[in-house]
């Protein structure tokens, strides 16, 4: 079975862990996030009758005090950038992270999860920003709360990595 390392990235409190939790089996406690800055989960997906094992490196959310440790990105075959539609700033962070990913991993598939689709009425992202984002990335609107599109985002990334 093919195995791939993928990284979950995004600003602080955008819902990375919630997305992953919707999706995976986990043996490690969430406290690893705060102690070593990463938590590993695993998900087996099937694409075109072929099974994949995705090793999900859920990296601690980035903020001004807490930068992503690039070591954890090493060897990743793809990334999911999570953006919180209610906080436009998280998109800026996503762009920053994309720069870091490109510098560290080169050209690897990246999918953006535009999270908190259940709170779409509270979204503060303006349309221009959304258009620009959709031009640059594969964007899928997700809701960790409802589970909407969660499977799809991992599937999308899986296909990009094939």
């Amino acid at each position: 079975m093919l195995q791939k390392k993928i990284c979950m990235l995004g600003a602080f409190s955008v819902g990375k862990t919630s997305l992953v939790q919707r999706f995976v089996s986990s043996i490690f406690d969430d406290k690893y996030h705060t102690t070593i800055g990463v938590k590993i989960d695993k998900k087996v997906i099937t694409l075109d009758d072929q099974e994949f094992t995705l090793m999900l490196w859920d990296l601690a959310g980035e903020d001004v005090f807490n930068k992503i440790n690039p070591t954890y990105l090493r060897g990743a075959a793809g990334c999911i950038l999570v953006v919180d539609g209610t906080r436009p700033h998280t998109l800026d962070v996503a762009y920053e992270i994309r720069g870091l990913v490109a510098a560290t991993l080169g050209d690897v598939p990246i999918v953006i999860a535009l999270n908190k689709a259940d709170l779409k009425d509270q979204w503060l992202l303006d349309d221009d920003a959304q258009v620009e984002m959709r031009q640059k990335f594969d964007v899928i609107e997700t809701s960790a709360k409802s589970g909407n599109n969660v499977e799809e985002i991992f599937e999308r990334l899986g296909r990009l990595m094939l």
Partner: protein
Amino acid sequence: MSDQELERVKQILVGDLRDALQSIEARFEHEAFLALVTDVVAEALEQRTDTDSKISDVLAPTIDQAITGSINQDPKKLASSLYPIMGPAIRKSISETLQQMMENFNQLLEESVSPQSIRWRFDAWRTGRSYSELVMLNTIEFRIEQVFLIHRETSLLIQHQVSDLTDVKDPDMVSSMFSAIQDFIEDSFSTNETNELNTLRLGDLTVVIQRGPAAVLAAVVRGRVPEDLRVSMVRLLESLHGQKRSQLADYSGDPAEFIELEPDVRQLLQSEKKQQEKAKKKFPWLAVISIAVILSAIGYWQWLGFEINQQQKHLIKQLEATAGITLLEAKFSRDELNAKLLVDPDATQPDTILADATAEFSTRVTTTPYLSIEDKILQRRAMRILTPEEDIQLRVVDRILWAEGTATTNWLAQAQQQWMRVAGIESFDFNSLIVVNPDLDRINALTRELESFVFEFESGKAEIDTSTTQFQNLVTDVKSLLTQAKRLGYTVKIDVVGFTDASGSDRINRILGLQRALTLTTRLVENGIPATALAAYRSQDYPTFAEETSRETKLVVTLEAEN
């Protein structure tokens, strides 16, 4: 009406009954109140307890007092109430303590008195390490529970091998987390980029990490880490990098590319396991041989002791069985035989018997001489004193000395005088003894020889040639006879009888016969034979030979015992 007046009216109306009424009233009030309180007291207590702990504070001293009172009054009551709780609790506590004690004792026994522990103590002293450290190093078994082969770049698991009976969590996740933790530690604490995390330790669990340029091996070891583990890991990594360079450099994420490495990775588990089993199953030759040697040494020593004891007993039996030896006392010990004996001088001496004893033990014998009257000893004593001649057999039966065979008169005469000197002999029986006198026999023999002697003459002559051997022998024999006969107390008389043939006249023949006898007699006297022993006769005058005719002389010897 003022109150005072009212009181006075009451006093007048009720008088002395007033106090009694008051007391009845008070009692009613009390009982009514009691009934009231009884109804609510439990609920009240419950309610108050919910609010605060005041009730328990208030009751505590009272309960203490009540318990103390109860114990003082009758301790058994409280004890039997507590019994169902205390019994099991005490038993549990005792059994736990005992179990712990047994475990400690076992451990102590195993570690304090075994030869191994002595060796460890020596090693500890030699290497300057603490004894407990050495015990741990030597006693804790190791088991390589898991081996992870991880792709370094992606942290993906390439191979995972696990020993039997090991509880395993999702190795893929463990592998990734493991890499993350390594990264975290190195990023957080390392001051030098070349520093790498190579060991993780938790209790008796150690994770040994060995890195290659593209792959990492991590072995999870329970217990002591075997010395050669890291070497084996390095070798495996080297061969892996050699064989799978391109696959490692550009890993697609498919572990199947490395499937053929499985036996090699598994070997890491197996070889250590095998070694462990081997060590466990190793037959304790050294111990068995040592025990066997010790046992055979003890056995040999015991056997030797038994043998010595047997030898000593055998010797004592021999001594006891020997005629003329009486055992007074015998003491046996491993290296000495001590005996007190009575020994007859004619007995086989103890030294001769003890000379057969081995050098395994020494013998100390104290002897006291005595006279035995055992027949065997009496016989020896008789032989020693009487010195029997060759043909005599001496026997002692029931203290009577028997002589058999042929004895000379001399010996018998001597024996008859001497036998009483043989202490213990009661009588001497020699009736079956044939007694001979050799001297008399010799005289008789000489006599017969002389009588067979015939001296021949020429016709008509009476001369003798004295130079002949025949004559010289005759002289010697006669002298010998005379000497021996005299010694035995006999007188010898030799008649010399002269004969003539039938030719010639009877008168001449008579003269010639006498002449011939006289000639021989004269010649014998001339050769030193006493004349008194000789007498000459002519045959015609000698009754025995009156009719015989020949030219000769004959001798007739007569022995007469002296008075």
